[in-house]
């Protein structure tokens, strides 16, 4: 008896690049972080958790930081699309 070939499982992971600036960039020793999010359509809240794991050096600053997606500040429920430009906006010190 033949069995139907199994379809390869698609790993529902989105990989995003997060730009870092200021003290967060200094703490991480880099200006971008690659983050894998185990979600097909992640929110910024999902990204925050994944970023804390991917970059522990900035984890303690994330609570007071926000994300900018395509140069606009967004809230936690904003969904991220593949190809979005994402930046962590925290500890700003202009003026």
């Amino acid at each position, binding site marked *: 008896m033949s069995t139907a070939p199994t379809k390869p499982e698609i790993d529902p992971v989105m990989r995003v690049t997060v730009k870092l600036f200021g003290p967060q960039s200094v703490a991480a020793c880099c200006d971008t972080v690659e983050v894998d999010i185990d979600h097909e359509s992640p929110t910024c809240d999902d990204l925050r958790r994944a970023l804390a794991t991917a970059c522990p050096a900035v984890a303690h600053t994330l609570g007071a930081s926000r994300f900018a997606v395509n*140069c606009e500040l967004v809230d936690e429920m904003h969904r991220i699309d593949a190809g979005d430009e994402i930046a962590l*906006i925290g500890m700003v010190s202009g*003026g």
Partner: protein
Amino acid sequence: MMIRAQIFDGPLPDEPITLQQPDAGAVINFEGVVRPGEDGRDIDGLNYQTYDPMAEKTLRQLGEQTCERFGLIGLSVEHSRGHVPVGRRSFRLRIASAHRKQALAAMDWFIDVMKRDVPIWKHPVFVSDPEVSKP
């Protein structure tokens, strides 16, 4: 209503952006100047890092929000990017309104929100160790 927002490389020009508003009874000007010390240590200046193009865009949007919130006639904001030596200007905000109270309240509100939301970071260049604080 006139709103101008501009980021300059290095220190700001000595002359501010013109904000000619014939109906304005009050025009106030705030300038941020780099102090000689930071965290109790002497500095050569500040290096300002900006997330472009979001920084200038956010300054302009904040200018629009401020004008609407306080009923202003005009607003111009200038900010530096890159190195600004001690004693030079790195930030300038000019506000024009019909009366004094709106302008003074708006000035305070704009700066508070800017220091929370606008993607600009300053890094002190310490005299004793200029490499330490590079972004």
